[in-house]
């Protein structure tokens, strides 16, 4: 498996990179970790004439936390690798959901190179981070010829591989509002083996106070041609006692929002079923964690 020829560019700054993109037009493609793009190129399903490798751009790296008024946020550079996400204790304290999910992505070697930016930007419905970012209500920063703009993760995905990113734009940063202290979280993923995409996966973030759910957010992976932010499912949980009726309602809402396709992982009916199973497990574990953490805080 040999890719078609291309020219290689390695800009040192974001401005240089967007400049190159503008200059080279649609024959150019940015390269992050490469673990989606390079296999596609080796299969000649993609044949960009120019590759713009972002690895030298310092401003695209790193994890920073700010605690501003109205809630802080975590800002993650697009070129931050899955391995670095997992290794960051600060991130694990603030948004533990990310480490939990990142450990379920691909395999060790791929995580050393695979980046969060690449994972969210390419629009592959099999990727885990897009659903996660929707669950966390993250925003993506896009840098392009007309400057910088922000798009909410929940607004970003149009269809498989089609996103709100315009040609000429580079997804540069991910801004995640800090979840409430003591929140509960879970990422439940069914896959066939290490390295596989999800057969079905569910991300849940919620808060519990006095036995009731404060806020809740639900997103699902690889169950439609985009990640699925199940707003109604979150709404079914928020304000509830998280009992069986509320969970059933949330699952029903989530299942109404998905549209899985049959593939080697199974037929549609199976995916519908395990989507519900993953979501129930995620809700249960998030609830348990929130309850535990709430108890810790009262102690």
């Amino acid at each position: 498996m040999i890719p078609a020829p291309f020219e290689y560019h390695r800009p040192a700054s974001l401005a240089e990179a967007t400049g190159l993109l503008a200059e080279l037009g649609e024959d150019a493609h940015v390269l992050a970790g490469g673990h989606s793009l390079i296999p596609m190129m080796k299969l000649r399903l993609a044949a960009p004439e120019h590759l713009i490798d972002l690895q030298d751009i310092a401003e695209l790296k790193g994890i920073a936390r700010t605690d501003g008024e109205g809630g802080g946020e975590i800002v993650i550079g697009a070129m931050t690798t899955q391995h670095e996400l997992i290794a960051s204790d600060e991130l694990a304290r603030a948004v533990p959901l990310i480490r939990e999910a990142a450990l379920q992505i691909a395999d060790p070697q791929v995580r050393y190179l695979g980046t969060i930016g690449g994972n969210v930007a390419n629009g592959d419905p099999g990727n885990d981070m897009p659903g996660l970012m929707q669950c966390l209500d993250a925003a993506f920063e896009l840098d392009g010829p007309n400057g910088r703009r922000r798009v909410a993760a929940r607004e970003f995905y149009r269809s498989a591989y089609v996103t709100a990113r315009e040609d000429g734009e580079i997804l540069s940063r991910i801004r995640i509002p800090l979840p409430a202290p003591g929140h509960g979280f879970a990422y439940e993923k069914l896959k066939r083996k290490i390295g596989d995409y999800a057969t079905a996966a569910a991300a849940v973030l919620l808060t519990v106070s006095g036995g009731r759910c404060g806020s809740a957010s639900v997103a699902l992976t690889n169950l439609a041609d985009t990640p699925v932010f199940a707003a109604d499912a979150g709404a079914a949980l928020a304000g509830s006692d998280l009992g069986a009726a509320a969970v059933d309602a949330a699952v029903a809402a989530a299942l109404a929002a998905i549209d899985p396709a049959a593939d080697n992982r199974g037929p549609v009916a199976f995916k519908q079923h395990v989507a519900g199973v993953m979501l129930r497990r995620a809700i249960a574990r998030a609830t348990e964690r929130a309850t535990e953490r709430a108890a810790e805080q009262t102690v």
Partner: protein
Amino acid sequence: MNDQTPTATERAEKLQGLGCARKRVEDARFTQGKGNYVDDIKMPGMLFGDFVRSPYAHARVISVDKEAALALPGVVAVLTAADLEPLNLHWMPTLAGDKQMVLAVGKVLFQGQEVAFVVAEDRYIAADAVELVEVEYEELPVVVDPFKALDPDAPVLREDIADQKEGAHGPRRHPNHIFTWEQGDEAATNAVLAGADVVAEAMIQYHRCHPCPLETCGCVASMDKINGKLTVWGTFQAPHAVRTIASLISGIAEHNIRIVSPDIGGGFGNKVGVYPGYICSIVASIVTGVPVKWVEDRIENLTATAFARDYWMQGKIAATRDGKITALWCHTTADHGGFDACADPTKFPAGFMNICTGSYDIPVAWLSVDGVYTNKAPGGVAYRCSFRVTEASYFIERMIDILAIKLDMDPVELRLKNFIRADQFPYHSALGWEYDSGDYHTAMEKVLKAVDYDGLRREQAERLAAFKRGETRKLMGIGVSHFTEIVGAGPVKNCDILGLGMFDSCAIRIHPTGSVTARLGTISQGQGHATTFAQILASEIGIPADSITVEEGDTDTAPYGLGTYGSRSTPVAGAAAAMAGRKIRAKAQMIAAWMLEVHDDDLEWDVDRFAVKGAPERFKTMTEIAFAAYNQAVPGLEPGLEAVSYYDPPNMTYPFGAYVSVLDIDVDTGEVEIRRFYALDDCGTRINPMIIEGQVHGGLTEAVAIVLGQEIAYDEDGNVTTGTLMDFFLPTAVEAPHYETDHTTTPSPHHPIGAKGVGESPNVGGVSCLSNAVNDAFRAFGHVHAQMPHDHWRIWKIAEGLGLHG
């Protein structure tokens, strides 16, 4: 002699002979990255070949336009069938008596079939050129279902033989029919079935899978036009047979062909066959006058080189009410793909499928197999098993469990009741085999005790009760299997491949200083022959294994043999090694007698020396004898110390084993967790327990893969949907369970050292053991049988069908 004189035991230990867990001599180079695999070979001026392959499963090839490709700088040649036809190389014989297109001749019969061969200065240019070859196709109706292939109005796949009523294995009754093979007594079997107390029936499908060694297939062909010699380095499990075939189809005299198998990165049957890539590389080297390398990529490996299994086995098994089996009936539909390229001995078009009576004393049986063409890749190799033995074993072990359900009996009890007893060996099976030795009851009972089988069943009952109370969503399954393999093909009287008798060989040369070079007709692909064959010889000739170099795989130096597959290396070449060693020892005895001035008969063998009977202080060691062989004129004897043995085994060997697995199934997701796997193997005399254990671990893991998801799947248009390692399931260290291994030792009575072979047993026994466990988990709900692979969604479907999802 004094106190420092080593005892016989100490001397024997120093030899590192039979039974010793000797560390492998191969490992030094492999752990340092110094292996020499085919893609590591680099030669001056070497060109690279790459294939244009069909995207369609069935299509007419209207035209091939190679102009654009030839215009690309660096492209040397583009070969099509039209270029091969004048050489009569556009078709090649298969190992099964059929023929196969080397490059598409007018049509293609499976997705990924070779259409044109591009030769270029490097592999990047070759890949670019493949994109530039324009092929015009006209799609034809596709047949992927072997049953539909035999419909009266099914599309004719092999137009080249459409009117041929007689195939290599007898009459053909449909253009897509290859052969019918029948064994046993049909009338008697039907009579017993008709009058039986109980008959269990099932269709047992063993899905199409693939050996998928980590190294794909490839070769470097080099035609030296000056001296007229063709050398081919390649991933060949049978280098000598490849040489003969290459000679027969190319017309190059056999002594002018040298075939070399360098280090091979796993074979598992995938590297037995002869593939178009080899032929095209040879032709390209002849045409260009320089070496040509071809190495397939993984997609090509999975879609175009030899698959395994794809058997649909309809079974009936009869028994008395109290569980004594009275008859077995089996009809198999065998999907061979577009060409019959099975790698079976000539007289066995369905391999040794007639071992399907398994470990049981079944008085009467009937087997018939119909081979069928479909629009799938050719192959049908023995994937880590002897020829079709894993299919046979899976069939009988599933049928036993299904019969146990019908009889409302524990599957272990049913097995114990029907095992061939130790006193029945040698045992003649209803389908024609003579089992050499066995003690099945002892093996089974040892395993049952080790795992506390009754305790496991109690635990299963408790868990089932908890499941029914809604306390868990997991079901526990217990799988039991007892397999009997038939390996070591085989006796020349009934085993040949393309007319080549399936003997094997060993040539030993003892050097003057007492070190040894031994060459065999087999070829290791990870089995550690350089380590274990030296151990056999060490025990036979009393020279330390560390002083014995084992060489294989170069037809210019090694004696002729049929290669390594079907667990035949130890049973056949291992026997040849022992026999050649005995010839060495016989001559050594005469030399020693002359040196010690006694009669031959006055000497006795003592570990590493000949000593005078009754006077052990008078002896000559093998080192001394070796030097004497080159240094002294022994009256009546030729100088030197060499021997060759070509060993034609009198019978196959019949390794066996008893396996138990325990697993937990999540009924909501279909996930399977293998909690325990206990494998007892009896491979006769054990040469190197460390290597045996390693072979068992590996074979079991391949069984885990096959049972839990590994599949070459096709959609209805004949597209392979599992062509990369994303979808073709190979377990990682996380999915692979931990294994417990055990053994009994029942030597083969006819093998010189009593060894039977082990590399493939764990796959044969492992598949049925795990599939039995999955099915067993649902037995309490009335479930009988589900087809493999037991991947998540198919297990979920069982649970769904049983109403376990509420």
